[in-house]
């Protein structure tokens, strides 16, 4: 590999600076300058707000939300079961009252 190729592919600031110093009119001056400029002035990332949440916190919040949903689902399921039980009990009481021997409707035809 040629010396200028090593320099341009190294990705090091000092290598670009050395190339530009040694070959100010080289073929790859423009490429070297752009690369050096990019290394010296890396694109700024958006500032992270102080109150932003980390990934861990996001995961935690998701887990909490999931847990809450699960609890609500369980609670709803439990309520539905209770409701079903209440319906069955009400039906039983209704039938019991209807069929009960204690009602005044009890009337036995005698035979002599």
């Amino acid at each position, binding site marked *: 590999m040629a010396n200028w190729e090593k320099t341009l592919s190294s990705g090091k600031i000092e290598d670009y600076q050395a190339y530009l110093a040694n070959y100010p009119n080289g073929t790859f001056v423009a490429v070297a300058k752009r690369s050096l400029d990019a290394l010296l002035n890396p694109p700024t990332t958006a500032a992270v707000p102080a109150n932003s949440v980390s990934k861990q916190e996001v995961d935690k919040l998701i887990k909490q939300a999931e847990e809450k949903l699960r609890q609500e689902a369980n609670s709803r399921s439990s309520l539905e079961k209770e409701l079903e039980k209440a319906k069955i009990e009400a039906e039983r009481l209704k039938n*019991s009252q*209807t*069929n*009960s*021997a*204690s009602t*005044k*409707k*009890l*009337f*036995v*035809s*005698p*035979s*002599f």
Partner: protein
Amino acid sequence: MKKILALSLMLASMGALAQDDVKYSLGLKNWNHTMTGPERTSVTVNSPLVSGSIKYKDFSFTASSLLQTTYVSTDQTYVMAVRTDTDYAFGYTVFDKVTLILGSKTISGPNVKDMVGMFYGLSAAQPIHEQGFVFGTLAQSNNFSNLDGLSADGKFSLVDVGYGHVINKNTTVNIGYRQQIFTTAVNNKYTLGGITFGVGFNF
């Protein structure tokens, strides 16, 4: 024929008197009983019993019948008796449970004169738990005519007790014990006792 007519009239009246105050009850029973006569002779038979009652408020009317039953001697050599009972009774209920009864009983048989007697008694039913009840009927007659073919002062008594179970609002089943005692003017005593199984329908 008369009893069929009476039961038919009762059933026919159901539609006309379809009110909450009017109640109807039908009963079917099998009475497996042993008749013991004055010479200690005994014979066991099954007798079907049918009854129908209509009740309006505290007043009731009942028609019941012991369908034709033939008592054959144990050795199967002769027929001791053939009987069909037809009963009518009016009732008045007190305390919601006990019905005072006044009625008439006719015992018919082929080639014999009808035996007839007025009777009085009471009938009651008492719930003992949610779907169970006990019931009982007591009746007595002191002037049963023609029991021995001649006299008019025979006696008749009835005890019918048992346990009933409510199947649904219209249907009950029951098991019990029923005993009839006929005593003739010359103190010949016929005791008929045995187990009953039955079903009742209320409307």
